[in-house]
């Protein structure tokens, strides 16, 4: 029942043999060893598995392989083409905007996609975009602050009011 699928993942052409109903998430994690997209619900409801597909943010758990054929996929591991971290990742690290960190892969993909398409996104736009991502540890406000910082070119004026 398996079938071959060709797609571009993080800039690389790949060929994956799997059942057409296998989710993109499981193909990425198990066939390509990309563990950055996480399994949180498998129902498209939490955002832990978010990846970019043709530039749009999708739930990879909810994307069967038959619909991923020929597409261009970017995971959290591939957001920054070179070495190092995407500026959203760096900002999250600087702000220590994570506790368990399980939700952050999907949050990063979502926020990075937003800023890459709309570098001036304001707080409202950031919150609206991230409303599709759940976080149980309660780091939402830290994440929003971090993403707002990531937005700034040069010196940044977003200062958390409770900064230490």
């Amino acid at each position, binding site marked *: 029942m398996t079938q071959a699928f060709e797609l571009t993942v993080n800039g690389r052409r790949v060929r994956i043999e799997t059942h057409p109903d296998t989710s993109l998430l499981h193909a990425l994690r198990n066939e390509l060893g990309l*563990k950055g997209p996480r399994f949180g619900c498998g129902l498209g409801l939490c955002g832990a598995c978010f990846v970019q597909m043709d530039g749009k943010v999708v739930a990879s758990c909810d994307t069967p392989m038959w619909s991923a054929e020929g597409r261009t996929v970017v995971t959290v591991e591939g957001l920054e083409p070179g070495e190092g971290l995407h500026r959203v990742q760096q900002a999250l690290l600087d702000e220590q905007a994570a506790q368990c960190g399980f939700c952050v892969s999907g949050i990063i993909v979502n926020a990075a996609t937003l800023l890459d398409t709309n570098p001036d996104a304001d707080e409202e736009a950031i919150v609206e975009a991230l409303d599709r991502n759940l976080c149980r540890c309660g780091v939402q*406000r830290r994440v929003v602050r971090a993403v707002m910082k990531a937005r700034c070119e040069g010196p940044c004026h977003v200062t958390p009011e409770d900064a230490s």
Partner: protein
Amino acid sequence: MTVQREIVAAPALPKDLAANPVLSRWVTVHSGGTIDVRVGKVELGQGILTALAQIAAEELGVDLEQVRMPPANTAHGPNEGQTSGSMSIIHSGPAVRAACAQVRARFTAEAARRWDVDPDLVTVRQGLFSCGERAVSYGELAGVVDLDVAADPGGPLTSGDRSVLVGMSAARLDLPDKIAGRPRYIHDLALPGQLSGRVLRPPSPGARLLRVDESRLADLDVRLVRDGSFIGVVGADEAEAMRAVQVLRDATTWEESDSLPDEDDLSAFLRSGPHETIEVLTPEGPEPEGRTIRATYSRPFLAHGSMAPSCGIARWNDDGTLSVWSHSQGIHGLRAAIAQALDMDAERIEVEHAENAGCYGHNGADDAAFDAVLLARDVPGLPVQVQWSRQDELAWSPLASAMTADVRAVVGESGSVSSWRYDVWSQGHTSRPGYLGVPGLLAGAHLERPWSYPAPGDPPAVVGAGTVRNGVPIYDFPDRGVTGHRLLETPIRTSAMRALGAYMNVFAIESFMDELALATGADPLEYRLRHLGDARGRSVLEAAARSAGWGNPAEEGVGLGLGFARYKDKGAYCAVVAEVEAESDIRLRRLTIAVDVGRVVNPDGVRNQIEGGATQAASWTLKERVRFDRRRITSDDWESYPILRFSEAPEVSVEIVETPGTPSLGAGEAAQGPTAAAIANAVAAAIGVRVRDLPLTADAVVAAIEAAED
């Protein structure tokens, strides 16, 4: 340098070190210079390993980067029991401190011996021992200093060296991996030969498996495993195993029955016994004459809702031993429970901790590990990784108990409380593996020879109790009675979740304090302070009120509310002021928090824990309720069990109030109860209506308004 000796002479080793005295259990110095510090506490997303690494580095006299914290393991590390109850820094902190101080002393002695100088003349900085021109590193001495020795009860408990490390906001050691999306969690482990396992849980708690039509699985490349009503599959491909479980759902026939209570009348369920009566404070005499005010509060069952469904890995080795990887909070307890369930020698089982998403108590971690053990039995020599579904995680993990409480106070002429009576009803708050004399692992109840699952118990009072945790108000009331009523028969599996009974008890006590203040025409802050002699408590309350602008005129439709407690009566102090905007909907705008957590190891870590705890508590308070019909739990995804979203998350500010010279207290569970009460009090302040039954949804507010109009 001679000062050290005087500071450190102390009579006894810290408890966890005394129980695991051999230094090499805790510390290994590698010749390359890296120092492994093993602890029995586990990383649950709370940053505990970073805080303990800071302490270790400070005591050893090395940079943080030189310290590595390997995962806890039953065979190689110290046994420090559970990682729970905000006790990690309290228990493990002093043990790590003393173990590392003694390691440092032994290395110092060796350097001194080499150079033939007095050890007091040897200093340690950044991992380098020196005396005059001479210097030698930890790594260079590693081969000669023997750490296979017991800690010396007369030896140092600290080096007395206060570097800048402790008290500094060190960046979390685990976050770079997590933010880069690297493999880090138990889900990401890929051991050689690893297979995927999936379990088909029964359709309802009381269900019994009658028949399986195995022919339906013929086309699927999986192996079927069955033991009584426990049924699952193992296969090489995870996606195939997932499909197989879908097929199996339709290929099985079950006998089911109604066993659950009425979700709309939990109060009656909780109050109709049998109960264990827990007398916490027995009043000395009858209540005095005076104006009596009373109220009843409740909260529903809650789910842990960790972002990652539980996962476990097990491998039966060729020599008959069993290896298990789990994100359990208590790997030693899990090992004992597996041994008991399978009637095998615990010595033959090794459990290693592997990180997972945030853990807020006894969730499905241990159960998933046992699932893996059962499935792996059929494929000896190969590791099986069992991944739970989101639905199973929400419906089958232990829940946090619903609770209800009656409070009654008599107030005197001045409005002050002259008598206080508190009764709380709840299921027990722990059924951790092994706790009730049985393994307590979910699948155990479904086996051909099943293990019973007794009603959950409560931790003993010395570790903070369960149902009555924080049941005693911190205020100086002259006459007090506090009684808990723990339900002894129940079909619902509950266990420990962050703060246990404290969330409900503080919600009730602090809501009622506001009701008393309002009924007697007092300001809620003044009313609390009037009854509060505890100086640390007063400063925390005043600090939160000050930062929140307490007493300033509020905008129309906006209310401020206060909530305060000292967690477990001897832990962290926490005061929360909630700012709520209530018009067509309830909008929690802001939480202004002050805490006193004693000595602070990592200030940003404490802030992060308090912010997270308060935000999660806001979610419980505003949105959450486990739903069920008479047969099964029906809230099994994020639509039927909604939690707080980005657009609903309040701004949280945390002020740390330090009381110099006080020991460190855990921070992870201090904010939950105060946050709930602060929100409810703020809603009451904003719209003049009090909601006493959680969650505080828009529907609940409408119902409260209607009830008030009747």
